[in-house]
Structures are given as C-alpha cells and as structure tokens.
C-alpha cells in the first residue's frame, strides 16, 4: 500500500525494512538453513570460525554449531519481540481507550495502575514474573509485556482525550452513534499512528530484555537464544571470544533494523498526519 511505498523511499525505512526482512527470512527458514536441533552436538568443540566450511562460525564448548544457534536464535528473538510488543499494545490500547473514554473515577483509578507499572523497573518485574511462574517462551512474552504496556496506555489515553473533543466526534454523537461504535470507527483510526510508532521501540526493548533474561539464565532452557549463547560464551571469553561476539552482533543488527524502521515510520506518519 501507499504507506509501504512512502516508507521505502526514506533511507531509514528502506534499510530498516531490508534488515528485518532478511532476519525474518532467516528465522522463517531456520530449519532449512540449519537442519536438526541446534542444541545437539554437531562437531568438535571450540572450532574457530572461518576455518571449517561445515561450521562457518565455529562451534562452542560442547561442539554445538554457532551458525545454527544464530539462525534458530533469530526465531526466538523475533517471535518474543513481536509477541511481547503486540501483547503490550493490546493491553495498552484497551486500558488507554477505557480510561480516555470513561473519564472521572475510572480514569483516575486506571491511571494510578498505569503509574504503578511505570514506576517499577520493567526488568525487575520481568525477573519476578519469570522466577515465580517459571521460564518458558509464553511466560517471558507475558513478563515483558507487563513491563511495557504502561507507555502505550498513557499515549493512547492522551490521544483519545485530544481526539474526543474534535468536531467529527461531536457530529458522530449528534447523529446518534453508539459510544462503542464511535470509539472504534472515529477514534481508534486516529489514535493508532503515534501508538504504532511506539510499537517499534517496544519490539526493540523486548528483544533486548529477552536477551538479558536468557543471559541471566532465566529464559526458556529448552531452546537456543542469543542471550543464552552469550552467557555460554562467557565461560571461554579469554580464549574464544567469538562465541559471545557473534550472537551479540546479531542482536545489534536486529535492534538497529528495528530502530531504523521506527524512524522511517515516524517520518512517514508525521509528514502525513500533521495537517488537521
């Protein structure tokens, strides 16, 4: 659609989308690019990268293929990132809409809850959550989402408050539209753009948080993640630093891609949404 084309015309949008497209493809085709279980012992331990064509990025202490780890780890990172952001946005949008629309006591109460979630450091919240319920991908996603929904909620509410008083909403009310219908047909489409710009930032933060949790040993132990690979590599940092460097680079590239996309998105959305 037009938005996509406009996005590709900005350098940030083009590079960001490009990077993420490559990553998405890698993640999607992981079982093809690196068949088998990435956590299985594939070869000799601690092969240096770029020496053995079977293991282009080398192997770790147990002989696991680093490239397979990176490729499969991309799945986890992208999956967790997107899922956590979607969950955070969904919760945030609902709460923000409710608060902005209802006003009064409901608004006040909801905003205090939002405050509470913004005050507690999201990483500590994620830590507590994972420690209590156990470490698995859905739990990690929920934990990150709980730490991230407060900002979209606040933003949504602010947008609702500003849009609510505009003329086209008043006319909808005069015609006799049901409030819920007004919420979805008039208000939501206008609230969405700035919240979407925030979405990319949440995805990036989610990816980094998941990596940090895995690094501390609090991620899902049954799958390979970039964070756990970095933690693994920590043991042989002096002799084989590449074990930690490659997954780290993968993280940097992914997050840079997300940020570039978000910058491109805000450029495109602000240029068209500015005139009222």
């Amino acid at each position, binding site marked *: 659609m037009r938005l996509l084309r406009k996005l590709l015309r900005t350098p940030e949008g083009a590079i960001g989308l490009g990077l993420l497209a490559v990553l998405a493809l890698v993640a999607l085709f992981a079982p093809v690019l690196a068949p088998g279980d990435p956590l299985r012992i594939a070869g000799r331990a601690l092969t240096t990268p770029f020496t053995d064509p079977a293991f282009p990025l080398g192997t770790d202490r147990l002989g696991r293929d680093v490239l397979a780890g990176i490729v499969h780890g991309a799945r986890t990172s992208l999956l967790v990132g997107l899922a956590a952001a979607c969950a955070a946005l969904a919760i945030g949008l609902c709460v923000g809409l409710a608060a902005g629309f209802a006003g009064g006591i409901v608004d006040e109460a909801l905003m*205090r809850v939002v405050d*509470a979630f913004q005050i507690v450091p999201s990483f500590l919240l994620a*830590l507590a959550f994972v420690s209590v319920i156990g470490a698995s991908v859905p739990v990690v996603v929920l934990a990150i989402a709980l730490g991230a929904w407060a900002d979209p909620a606040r933003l949504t509410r602010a947008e609702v408050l500003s849009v609510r008083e505009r003329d086209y909403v008043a006319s909808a009310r005069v015609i006799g539209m049901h409030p819920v219908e007004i919420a979805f047909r008039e208000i939501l489409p206008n609230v969405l753009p700035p919240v979407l710009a925030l979405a990319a930032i949440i995805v990036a933060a989610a990816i980094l948080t998941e990596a940090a949790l895995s690094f501390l040993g609090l991620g899902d132990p049954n799958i390979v993640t970039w964070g756990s690979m970095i933690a693994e590599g920590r043991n042989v940092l002096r002799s084989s630093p590449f074990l930690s460097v490659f997954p780290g680079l993968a993280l940097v590239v992914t997050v840079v891609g997300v940020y570039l996309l978000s910058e491109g998105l805000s450029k495109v959305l602000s240029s068209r949404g500015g005139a009222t």
Partner: protein
Amino acid sequence: MNRALRLLRRRAVGSIPVLLIVVVLTFLLLEAAAGDAVDAYLLSIGGGDAAIAQSLRASYGLDQSMPARLWLYLSSLARLDLGWSVAFDRPVRDLILERLPNTLLLMGSATALSFAIGSALGIVAGARPGSGRDRVLSTLSLVLYAIPGFWLGLVLSTVFAVQLRWLPTSGIETIASGRTGLSRAADIAAHLALPVATLTLVYMALFLRVMRAGMAEVWGLDFVLFARSKGLSRARIVLRHVARNALLPLVTMLGLQSAAMLGGSVVIESIFAIPGFGRLAQEAVSGRDTALLTGIIVTSAVLVILVNLAIDIVYAALDPRVGASERGA
C-alpha cells in the same frame, strides 16, 4: 521556592496510592509462586520432612491466609520493616541498605556522565541539524543504543580487564586490602570504571538523541528567528536559546528513564560481580526468596518516585511556566 514546594507536596501525596498499588500487586504476584522460600531453603539444605517445613512456615508466618499475610506485610511496611529474608537469614531491610549504596554510586556516576556527555554531543549535533557532523553522531548514537548493555560490558571487560589487564575484572574493591580514605576511593573508582563506562555508553546514546531531536524542533520556533534578527552570535543562539529550551524534554526523559536504569543495573552488576542492589535481585530470584524480592521491588518503586520528585523540582527550576498561574491574555 514556594512554587516548587507546593508542586512537591502535591506530587508526593499523589504517589502514595500508586505505591500502595505496587505493594499489593507485587504481593499478589509473588503469591503465585508454587513453592515458597521455605521449599527453596529445604532444597538447598538437601531436603527435610513435612514437619520441619510446617514449623518453619509457622515461624515465618508463611502458613496464614493470603489476606492475613497481606495485612501483616502492609502493617510492617508502615513500620519500615521489610520482612525477613529466608535465603540470607537476615532482615530484608538490612540487606537492602547494605547493597544499595554500591548501586547508587554506580548508577549515579553513570547517569551524571552519560547526561553530561550525551547532551554535549547532542548540542554539537543539533547545532546544525542535517550537517555531516549531525549525521555521523546520529548514526553512532543509533548503533550505540542498539548494543545490549550486558554484551558491551562483556566486551569491555574482556578487552580492558582480561586482555590488557588495565582494570580489575570484578568486585567493587580489592577485598581485605585495608585501604582507607583517598586510596580506597581510588580503588573503588578503578573497580567501577568499566561498569560505569558500559552504562555511560549505552545511556549517552539516548540523551544524545533526545537532545538532538529537541534542538531540531526548537530551531523552527519563532523566538530563534527573533534572536537571529537581533544579530546575536551563533554560539549564544545555539546555547542560550536553542539548547536551553531543548534541555526541558531531556530532563523529562531523565525522569522517565530512571526506572529502566535501575533495572539495567541487574545485568551489569552480575557481569562485574558488584555486590549491589541489582545483584541482590538476581540472588533473590535464584533463592526463591519472595520476601526479599518483594522488598526489592517496593524499594525500587520508592527510589523511582523519589528520583521523579527530584526531577520535577529541577524541571520547575528550569521552566518558569510550570506551576505559575497565567496573568494577562
């Protein structure tokens, strides 16, 4: 001064219900723990029978109903008693007070440095938006901000502590060195250099971007054109007019980031083995010590509230429009 105090009081009072919500929600969350601290403790000592578990629970008050325990917790909180840590066998409050100063030192230095360097570079970039200098700095900050803090910490540690041996790899000071005064301070500084550097690099990127974005926006405002029409020097316009106004959203961002920074201390302290507050959180998680974890979360909330109050005062000092009633059209 009056304006600031009024604002302060209003904000402080408004924070109390929020803190209450934090405490209640945290308590409810940790209730969901299948197996509490006693289980973890028994596991660590190699097992024990049900009777021991029962008596332990009774002595720690862990066998009462949930609402009763919540009420008990709230009332002790009012007395500033944060409960007992089963994993460490010490009062939670003592543990926190012992570990907090190290983290505050770490975070404080990192925040100050990153704010100073980040805003300075942001001013350099924002002095001429779109220039080559701006583009280089913006790209640099983007990449820096994308680097995971823990990975950067590992890299710096490997290069400077392990390979080059310029700095110590872990801890906050050389143990049992018996140093005092300036020598001790220097020792601590050497130990904190790498973790502070790591955090500074990551957060500096954020402040650079916010300052630069703020300046780019302020450049378009009319009073800057008016300043140009008065023929003022470029330096004065950039610093006294543009940057001075761009400082405002930056200060706000500092407040918003305080919670994230506190959370970030967990991994950094883990990598550099700093005996701080963040590390304590990790230890509480591995020890399944719900009382300690609750205490940590509540303390973090209080810290963030205090930091935000301080930021509010600073902001009010910087922006004369805050809290003032408008006179005139």
